[in-house]
């Protein structure tokens, strides 16, 4: 009795230490803040007390597999060769099914039970997706693989107007997602997790309330190995409070020092180092279509979902993307690839969707689509001018804060030009929309080249001495061989020569050398033609029109 009393006093003392300790563990600079505060008492920087919110998803394994809610459903896991229920939904629980029950027993209770095998990869992917969402509210998110997220909200309380506001916003988001959740908060991460595991939807904001609240929790919420739990129960220990009342050295010797440390972390006596979630650099997401579909609306629906996920991702990371790759899986056939390349990085999901629709309209699908995946490598960070596209018009969304900043108008114009070009390219194909540029070259067909359509406006001039004579406005893609009559070229009748010959002889160095005499002629139908005679074989060709 006496011994226990001393331990409690010790625990109180240790608890006090731990509060200071955890402050140091949290910030690292807490000490320096304290020092500077003593020097400058008026400019004291108040660091918000840490507050951890645990969101537990009790039906994660069901949700990850898309199990129905309307019928009794359960997820199985193999434990030493015996299939047992890992989780079940409300309907199944009402019928008497409980986690840990063997499959046979569960089937005996509900013969029509919807049974699925657990897929841990899907659960992790789902948790990561929710962690990405949670980053909206706090930069510090930790994933607990038993199906919970830990959010540090102490730093976000002021921005979101207090815990109750923040909590209701979180709950509203989770409600739209359709997830079942249990939410608990505590000044210590582990304590929040334990409260949530015990299904106690509590808000414990003060450190001193914590031991009292935790004391009543059952041992199950620690999620320790079954053998350890059984050992403690045989000792007559049923709650966390019972555990804490045991002598420390004895507990460490009989149960294990690791478990003692975990208890200390939960009660805030020693710092808890959590692995914070780092969102991925690139976006990659996929959706399965069940059943496989060729219906445009269903595929577009999947694309819409993917694009809105991408948009959330981009908004959270404050980045823009320039290239999207859509892959549509088919059963037994090569996947269909769609690629969208933007002239400028952009972050608007609506705009991506619009371009994808334009592309999809023209895409032939060889077989029903079983799944759609979207991949985007992030190109640039923190745009100066954001793009926001609505109803086909582009407006400057988040431009410079200074009105009339230099170049702001130009970039707005740039955005509009790029929007038009991207839309045209999405429907007609990349290579069918282009600009023109000059090339310093004597050979007429090489004196111009296709230019990037979104290029800036640069006043070009004909390179000096390159062109002495007037050139035709229309050029043929390939010179057209002309018929000859009595050695003279004809084109729908006789031709009248207007100019004398212009010899163009060039290109011996790259294998495309030409030796041509160019003439301007007029035809009977009133067209002015640009024709040449190839000096090597004396054939006549039509090469352009003076439009």
């Amino acid at each position, binding site marked *: 009795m006496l011994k226990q009393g001393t331990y409690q006093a010790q625990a109180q003392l240790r608890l006090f230490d731990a509060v200071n300790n955890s402050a140091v563990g949290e910030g690292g600079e807490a000490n320096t803040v304290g020092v500077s505060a003593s020097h400058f008492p008026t400019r004291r920087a108040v660091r918000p007390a840490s507050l951890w919110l645990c969101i537990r998803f009790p039906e994660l394994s069901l949700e990850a597999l898309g199990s129905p809610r309307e019928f009794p459903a359960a997820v199985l896991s193999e434990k030493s060769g015996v299939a047992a229920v890992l989780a079940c939904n409300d309907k199944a629980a009402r019928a008497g099914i409980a986690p840990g029950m063997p499959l046979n027993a569960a089937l005996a209770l509900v013969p029509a039970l919807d049974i699925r095998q657990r897929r841990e990869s899907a659960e992790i992917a789902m948790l990561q997706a929710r962690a990405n969402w949670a980053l909206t509210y706090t930069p510090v998110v930790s994933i607990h693989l038993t199906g919970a997220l830990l959010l540090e909200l102490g730093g976000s309380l002021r921005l979101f107007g207090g815990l109750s506001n923040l909590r209701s916003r979180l709950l509203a988001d989770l409600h739209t997602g359709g997830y079942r959740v249990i939410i608990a908060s505590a000044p210590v991460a582990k304590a929040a997790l334990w409260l949530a595991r015990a299904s106690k939807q509590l808000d414990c904001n003060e450190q001193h309330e914590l031991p009292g609240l935790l004391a009543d929790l059952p041992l199950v919420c620690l999620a320790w190995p079954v053998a350890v739990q059984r050992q403690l129960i045989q000792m007559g220990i049923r709650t966390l409070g019972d555990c804490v009342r045991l002598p420390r050295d004895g507990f460490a010797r009989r149960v294990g020092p690791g478990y003692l440390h975990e208890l200390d972390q939960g009660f805030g006596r020693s710092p808890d180092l959590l692995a914070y979630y780092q969102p991925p650099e690139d976006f990659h997401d996929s959706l399965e279509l069940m059943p496989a579909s060729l219906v445009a609306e269903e595929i577009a629906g999947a694309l819409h979902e993917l694009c809105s996920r991408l948009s959330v991702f981009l908004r959270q990371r404050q980045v823009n993307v320039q290239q999207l790759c859509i892959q549509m899986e088919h059963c037994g056939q090569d996947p269909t690839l769609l690629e969208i390349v933007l002239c400028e990085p952009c972050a608007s999901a609506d705009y991506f969707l619009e371009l994808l629709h334009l592309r999809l309209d023209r895409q032939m699908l060889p077989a029903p689509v079983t799944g759609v995946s979207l991949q985007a490598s992030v190109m640039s960070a923190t745009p100066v001018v954001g793009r926001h596209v609505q109803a*086909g*018009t582009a407006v400057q969304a988040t431009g410079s804060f200074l009105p009339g900043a230099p170049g702001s*108008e*130009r970039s*707005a*114009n740039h955005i*509009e*030009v790029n*929007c*038009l*070009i991207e*839309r*045209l390219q999405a*429907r*007609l194909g990349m290579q*069918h*929309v*282009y*600009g*023109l*540029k*000059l090339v310093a070259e004597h050979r*007429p067909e090489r*004196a*111009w*080249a296709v*230019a990037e*359509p979104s*290029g*800036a*406006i*640069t*006043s*070009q*001039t*004909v390179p000096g001495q*390159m*062109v002495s004579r*007037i*050139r*035709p*406005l*229309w*050029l*043929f*893609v390939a010179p057209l061989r002309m018929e000859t009559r009595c050695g003279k070229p004809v084109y729908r009748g006789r031709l*009248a020569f*207007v100019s004398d010959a212009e010899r163009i002889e060039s290109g011996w160095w790259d294998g495309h050398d030409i030796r041509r005499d160019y003439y*301007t002629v*007029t035809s009977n*139908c*009133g*067209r*002015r*033609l640009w024709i040449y005679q190839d000096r090597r074989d004396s054939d006549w060709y039509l090469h*352009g*029109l*003076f*439009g």
Partner: protein
Amino acid sequence: MSREDRLRKLLKNPHIWRPGESSATGRNNVPSGFSVLDQQLGGGWPIGVLTEILLSNSGIGELGLLMPALIHMSKNDSAYDSRSYTAVQDTWGSSRSDRLLWIAPPYIPYAPALTQHGLDVSRVLIVHSAKQLDALWAMEQALNSPVCRVVLGWFADIDDRSMRRLQLAAESGACWTVIFRHARFADITSPAPLRIHIKPGRKPEAGDLDLNILRNRYGPVGELSLQC
């Protein structure tokens, strides 16, 4: 406000055209570079409406006819300020639109020749399309976007409904819009307010071109000869 004042105010609406009134005030146009033609068109090529040019063969001088205006439109904006097209300035909102879009041209617009004429080729955008439906879609998109200053389109066969759509799109924007069609459509009605049938003139080598203005909302119809 008296009845006359109200009537006068109403008549200032640019959408109202009265026969005999040549250059309607407030209407935007581009000087064509030919004084005879400017006179006939009430100031120049009209902006924000569809202009239809009918010809039997490409290369008879249709680009030569448009070239002075195209060059004018490809000049940068400081050149605009020196001129007095304030209304044009307003609708374009300073440097917003600066591209010259060519949709489905029959041959390659030859950049060295365009530059020789004085056109800024870096403003030229070209759209090719195997299907005419796509070309029409591209033209409508371009007319609805504030990017283009000039939209030129070549269409082999275009039905009345599409023409009306394009005319509506042209009215919503502030582009100089020209459609090239085959001369066989000359007798078929069209919603374009300006329709010109062009033929090679007496001396094609000198650039002679005969114009037959079939329909003209901005002035008299009739034939005239130009040297492009």
